[in-house]
């Protein structure tokens, strides 16, 4: 196992202060600077692909391909999109034309929040660490990254590489465990993004509350799959097993349990057996295409839950805690109150829950916390729609699993107990941005419209107030008084013409 050098506790406030000072220096204001840094995040990866793949091989026993697919592809996609879009995103936004306000030139300006803290987990360590970094850079923030201590080789490597590629004062890595994280949480950050579980999520949110720091929490949950028996069963089995067994099931978006009509269970399982054979022709233990569990403790935890299940193991089931190995496993006839369904498994175990019909499937999903994703396998748009519109989740995906996080332009985020706020794209950029409103009010506006506001208030104020007040939409259940509206528009046009004349004459006077 690689050794990870922890950041010294007394250095943590210094790193925070350095990032704040660098942010206050204003050098992130330049969009060219931001773009260069964003590109550098890409090259940090590109130049060191092999070292990172090896680090994750050592940390997670992970095949190279999974690192390419889950980590590299998603970060490159993000780098490219943000790099191409940032000029558009940072443009000041004009509001819709509005008569009373346009002389003031109202606009919204995207300003950075300050210094962002990103606490990332072990499971998709590159993407979850660097994609929020790209968003933070794009919005003009400083950022401090805390990679997981459970991926020592990778965390050590990223601490070495980041200062080589990026501005070392604005962007920093802190490595450590509970003590270091606790120290970090004592400091005032301008936004905290945390990915992990609900228990720690509450601690993070409570620590942030003391400093009135806004947070983003990405917490996971149990993602259900609803299978329509009329669906291509081979495709279903293949994509389900892929989603569940990639990275040994340690993905927040992985399908966690499959709701299948009881009469269709045998068919689905038969097909899964075939797919399983093609995935692991020499058995999964010998396959170089299957990852390991991150720690022996987690392996033990998953094993315990497998031991306690009332369902029947039909594929896999073997475990070797010392080697952090849990075989890719499918369990059938799992009841809703089973040990495998109490909380997120976060391992390569797929429980199959037989149900009567789609209504029972929906009611099971509704009885549980909102998940990060609901998956449906069906070619029937009505079936999909029924499941999606009766459930809530971060993502609603048909005939596919997991990959939404890699699609450029789709935000990644939960709802309710699966968290709040977003990763990636414009949504993450906006989350690290404050929309600062701005207007400049010329003196003459008081003469035309806004003069009535000054004391002493006069009884004729009403007629001016009407001039600047928005009209209401028609009263529900009635026909709107068209005549009245005409009069209103006429008045509107008159006032408009008057103020244009005034603006012009004012401009001429100046000239």
């Amino acid at each position, binding site marked *: 196992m690689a050794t990870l050098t922890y950041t010294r506790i007394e250095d943590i406030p210094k790193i925070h202060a350095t990032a704040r000072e660098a942010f206050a220096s204003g050098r992130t204001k330049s969009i060219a600077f931001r773009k260069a840094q964003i590109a550098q995040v890409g090259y940090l990866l590109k130049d060191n692909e092999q070292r990172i793949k090896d680090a994750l091989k050592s940390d997670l026993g992970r095949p190279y391909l999974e690192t390419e697919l889950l980590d590299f592809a998603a970060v490159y996609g993000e780098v*490219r999109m943000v790099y191409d879009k940032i000029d558009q995103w940072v443009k000041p936004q004009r509001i819709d034309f509005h008569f009373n306000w346009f002389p003031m030139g109202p606009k919204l300006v995207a300003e950075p929040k300050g210094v962002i803290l990103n606490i990332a987990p072990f499971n998709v360590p590159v993407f979850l660490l660097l994609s929020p970094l790209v968003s933070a850079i794009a919005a003009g923030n400083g950022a401090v990254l805390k990679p997981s201590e459970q991926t020592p080789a990778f965390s050590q490597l990223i601490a070495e590489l980041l200062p080589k590629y990026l501005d070392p004062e604005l962007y920093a890595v802190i490595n450590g465990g509970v003590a270091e994280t606790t120290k970090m949480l004592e400091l005032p950050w301008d936004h905290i993004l945390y990915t992990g579980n609900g228990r720690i999520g*509450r601690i993070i949110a409570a620590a942030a*509350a003391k400093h009135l720091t806004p947070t983003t929490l990405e917490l996971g949950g149990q993602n259900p799959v609803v299978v329509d028996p009329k669906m291509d069963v081979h495709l279903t089995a293949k994509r389900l097993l*892929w989603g569940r067994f990639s990275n040994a099931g340690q993905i927040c978006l992985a399908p966690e349990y499959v709701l299948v009509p009881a009469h269709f269970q045998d068919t689905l399982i038969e097909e899964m057996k075939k797919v399983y054979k093609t995935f692991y022709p020499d058995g999964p233990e010998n396959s170089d295409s299957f990852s390991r569990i991150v720690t022996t403790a987690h392996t033990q935890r998953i094993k315990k839950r497998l031991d306690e299940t009332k369902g029947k193991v039909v594929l896999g089931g073997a475990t070797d805690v010392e080697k952090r190995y849990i075989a890719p496993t499918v369990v059938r006839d799992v009841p809703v109150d089973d040990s495998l369904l109490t909380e997120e498994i976060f391992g390569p175990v797929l429980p199959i829950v037989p149900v009567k019909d789609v209504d029972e499937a929906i009611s099971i999903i509704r009885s549980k916390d909102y998940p990060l994703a609901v998956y449906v396998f069906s070619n029937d748009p009505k079936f999909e729609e029924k499941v999606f519109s009766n459930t809530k989740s971060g993502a609603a995906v048909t005939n596919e699993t997991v990959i*939404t996080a890699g699609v450029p332009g789709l935000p990644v985020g939960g*709802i309710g107990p699966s968290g709040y706020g*977003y990763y990636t794209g414009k949504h993450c950029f906006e989350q690290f941005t404050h929309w*600062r409103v701005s207007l400049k009010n010329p003196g003459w506006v008081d003469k035309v419209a806004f003069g009535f506001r000054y004391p002493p208030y006069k009884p004729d104020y009403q007629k001016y107030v009407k001039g600047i007040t928005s009209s209401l939409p028609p009263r*529900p259940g009635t026909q709107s008084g068209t005549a009245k509206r005409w009069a209103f528009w006429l008045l509107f046009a008159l006032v408009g013409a008057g103020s244009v004349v005034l603006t012009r004459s004012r401009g001429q006077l100046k000239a």
Partner: protein
Amino acid sequence: MSEQYTPLDDIPRVLASARTAFLSDRAKPVAFRKQQIAQVGYLLKDNEERFKEALKLDLGRHAVETELFDFGPTYKDVRVAYDNVDKWTKVQPVDFNLNYIAMRPTIKAEPKGVILIVSAFNVPLFLTLGPLVSAIASGCAAVIKPSEAVPHVNLLLAELIPKYLDPELYHVIQGGVAETSKILELRWDHSEFSRGERVGRIIAQAAAKHLTPITLELGGCKNPVVVDPKVDIEMTARRLLWGRFSNAGQVCTCPEYVLVPRTFQSTLLSALKDAYGKFYPEGPENSDSFSRIVTREHAARLQGLLKRTNGEIVCGGDVNVEKKYVAPTIVNNVTAEDALMGEEMFGPVLLIVPVEDVDEAIAFIRARETPLAVYVFSQDKKFQEKVFSSTRSGAALANETVLSPAVPGFPVGGVGASGYGYYAGKQAFEQFTHYRVSLDNPSWVDTLVFGFRFPPYRDTYKRYVKMMHAPLPPRPTKGAKTTGPGVAWTWWISFVVSRLVSASSLMLVRSSDALRRLKP
């Protein structure tokens, strides 16, 4: 009026009723939302006189101020949400991307659930009904807890909201500390809170237990004004005093202190005195154009602060705690350490802080917590720009104060110590919305590109992975390596090839769709 408070036992029932109504999905149709949004407008419109009367009783407020600060911005929120909700709720496609186009990825706005709105006393209608409109627009249910400091307004809200709106989706809870504590024990899907940093922290901690996202509108810090000597001085004085003395200074976005160059200080002061004389020709105590402080405690707090100042009171200064009256007051020569420069005053007291020049003014602002607004009075664009770009704040206004929450399309929100999240407009709608992503992946995609992902992994995967990987932007030039033209050419060739592939894949989509249609 504590007998009007909601019984503690009823509070969980109120939430349960709102949640059941939300889960019934009747707030889903946009037509329903628009109808309810319009009803919020008519709730006010039909009862304008009664609300003005209630605010006269609660805050001694003149009708002009109620129109300007409460009615106007609320009608604006109603109109903006009504006109835009169709657009806001439209399913959004993502930008074209070769690898994913076949999956038709989309983003759909879905409501978060039941929103809790805890509002402040100072602008009680806008801060209550504005967020309510945003909650309705996003399809959420809402429970409102208005401030107990304005009992007459609350009575009206509690009477009218169930009359005008769906009484199961939208509720009012009345009460004080005990009721609020009970409310905070419950799990809400989003909580929104205005005013008071201390209570803000309590709300945030309570929300953390339930993993509830929150919006905090805190004020909390003092909003600075920077005055350039090259400015229309009469306008500056008039707009400053108006911003400070409206609603007796109880507005979160009020200008609190004025940073003015020493050389210009006496000019500004005499202009302020002139404006003061015009505002209150018979003295402010007799003026019907000046509000009162919300409670005696707050009046006494302001009196205490005024007693402790080392500045020089040049206008006003008298306080009558019994009558909740604090005169509109101008204090000159206030220093950074003065008692009045501590927390936000939230009363009609304007501080003049002399500085050497604009740089000292900027340093003064930067040394303090981030305010809700920074105001600049100057005709010089460079001067304005210098102050705005060197400071941070919720809003940046030139030659105006307070007015920004009334602008249609403007979000209202702080940054740093002044809070986070937004009131009003699209931003508030988005805050109560979860953007649920969606895609549907046809099976042939695996045949064409995505098949390489399935175990057993083969060495040929690299080819496919490269197709998936977006090309990086050019390497920043500082480093040793640069992308040579050769590399760029290969990139372009692969680009053209991938275009061809995409065209054929699109054709495949179409033909498979066509086939699907042909099948009965």
